């Protein structure tokens, strides 16, 4: 890239930041949220929520940008900021819409919802529009369990509100901090407050007694690994109780604009990121490139060991090393929290929870059924929440990847039946064998004809247990 091209690429996020600094919401048209995430196969909080339809920041690694970059609605002059309908949200969580599917499957059971999925709850839009403030009061007054995922500076404004609601401890705070270098951060996370600010916010919320989590997602090699010791020291300093990590994944099916931003990210990191990902990713996983397990091990080892030694919950949303999760939630929510058990009201009818149990069983010396991943155990693995997986309307309305389905098929498809299709197709990137890159391998079929997968121990586990004294059967 020549100098002018680099300048043009760098100007784009700055321009995005400028035009969005004080953008106001459309008063009549609302953004439809929450929605069921397409990641329900291995997500503990599949119902996600955003207060605005996009984010004012411009982080170069943003996975939402990959999706939104392909959406013509979010381009050009017609770009319209929308917020959720707070009154509708109030009706939804208080049972005034008894036939609503979200009430039926989630809110009536006090499911912990994630707020901050495709946008930031506390970015510049909140400063001008204050929709989030009304929602915090709504959830706070109802003691409704919510997990925030944020970077934005507007959280500072709401610290007194969170102080007011601290007795209930129904809020969990997760902040994305993927590196400590403030200069590099300002070039990569354009517009977002410094890593130090975000740590301080987590520290203050932790002092109020809330469960706080460092979201080390995505772990970007060339940024996150530099100063990793300092980052972990900050976790101790600010008494952070969970770390959730996932490595950066490169989606090769993206718009030209996004591709240019990725190339520029590689420039900033000092290597050809596209070639690196092509050469080191398993092609079994399709065009969504994830580096293979061996590349990631040394950093996973360091972070896991830190958590293991310091009583911090380790969460890994990366399909590689997902078996190491210390709870059923790869967002590093706890298994139990006596101060407010409702923050553990996440779903367990998903592969993350089950894979963790297979690893634990293996290292506790169990064999046979105890180390086998079975379809029935996943989709019927949570009596409280599993019914949403068997509803066809939810699939038709919410799930975005329906490209292989005919319209007539969609009406008869449920999240569970879609999952079954992936499960039994060993060529699908979503089949457990491919998705977890060989961590489970097929060993036969169950009585319904579904493949049964078995946990496979990998060399790193022998290394960790023998050389580092880590008991992989503990959590």
């Amino acid at each position, binding site marked *: 890239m020549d100098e002018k091209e680099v300048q043009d690429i760098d100007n784009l996020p700055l321009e995005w930041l400028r035009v969005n600094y004080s953008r106001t919401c459309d008063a009549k048209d609302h953004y439809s949220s929450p929605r069921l995430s397409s990641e329900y196969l291995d997500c503990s909080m599949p119902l996600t929520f955003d207060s605005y339809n996009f984010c004012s920041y411009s982080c170069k690694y943003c996975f939402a940008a990959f999706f939104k970059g392909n959406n013509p609605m979010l381009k050009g002059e017609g770009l319209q900021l929308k917020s959720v309908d707070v009154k509708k949200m109030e009706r939804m969580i208080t049972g005034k819409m008894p036939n609503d599917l979200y009430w039926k499957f989630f809110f009536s059971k006090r499911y912990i919802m994630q707020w901050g999925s495709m946008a930031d709850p506390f970015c510049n839009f909140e400063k001008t529009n204050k929709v989030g403030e009304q929602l915090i009061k709504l959830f706070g007054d109802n003691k409704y369990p919510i997990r925030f995922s944020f970077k934005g500076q507007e959280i500072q404004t709401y610290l007194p509100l969170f102080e007011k609601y601290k007795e209930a401890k129904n809020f969990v705070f997760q902040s994305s901090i993927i590196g400590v270098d403030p200069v590099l951060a300002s070039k990569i996370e354009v517009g977002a407050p410094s890593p130090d600010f975000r740590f301080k916010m987590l520290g203050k919320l932790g002092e109020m007694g809330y469960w706080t989590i460092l979201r080390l997602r995505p772990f970007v090699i060339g940024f996150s690994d530099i100063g990793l010791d300092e980052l972990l020291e900050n976790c101790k300093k600010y008494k952070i109780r969970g770390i959730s990590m996932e490595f950066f994944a490169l989606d090769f099916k993206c718009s030209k604009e996004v591709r240019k931003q990725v190339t520029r990210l590689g420039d900033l990191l000092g290597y050809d990121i596209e070639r690196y990902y092509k050469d080191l990713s398993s092609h079994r996983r399709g065009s969504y490139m994830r580096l293979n397990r061996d590349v990631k091990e040394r950093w996973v080892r360091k972070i896991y060991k830190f958590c293991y030694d310091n009583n911090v919950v380790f969460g890994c949303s990366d399909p590689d090393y997902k078996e190491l999760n210390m709870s059923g939630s790869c967002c590093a929510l706890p298994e139990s929290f006596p101060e407010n058990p409702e923050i553990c009201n996440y779903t367990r009818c998903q592969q993350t929870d089950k894979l963790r149990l297979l690893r634990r069983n293996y290292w506790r010396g169990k064999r046979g059924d105890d180390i086998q991943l079975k379809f029935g155990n996943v989709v019927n693995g949570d009596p409280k929440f599993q019914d949403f997986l068997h509803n066809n309307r939810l699939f038709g309305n919410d799930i975005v990847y329906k490209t292989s389905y005919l319209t007539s098929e969609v009406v008869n498809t449920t999240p569970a039946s879609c999952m079954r299709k992936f499960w039994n197709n060993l060529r699908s990137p979503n089949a457990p064998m491919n998705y977890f890159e*060989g961590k489970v391998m097929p060993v036969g079929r169950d009585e319904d004809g579904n493949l049964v997968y078995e946990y*496979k121990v990998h060399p790193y586990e022998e290394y960790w247990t023998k050389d580092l004294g880590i008991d992989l059967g503990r959590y």
Partner: protein
Amino acid sequence: MPDLSEFLTGSSESDVFKERQRVIEQAEKDLPASDVRKKEIELFAPKDLLTFFKWSDVTTYFDSVKIYFSSKEYYGLFRKHFKVSEYLEANTYHIEHLIAFLVALEKGYIKIEVDGDDIILKSEKPFELGVTNG
């Protein structure tokens, strides 16, 4: 190119793994970042999922296994060693190591025995293979 000898002879994968990680961690101390990335590409080339199998388990995991040939020569090589009734197909997009396997058969490094439904592979001694994919 996956090292076929490692999983056939049962040498310690854990030791090989540790050594590769040690080399990279040392490189991180000694080399500029771009060279470390090159070293990683050299050492951590993605394994094919079949390397997680023990060959003796292949018939347990799959009712049938398919090989997709990228050239006629490979197919010819395959037919030289397998009768259709012993069809060994692999569910994989990458067949380099299977070709290596066939070459190993041709050179006599591996012996194949069929006992009922079981295909038994035997290796007399550790060996190394290098195959250039066409």
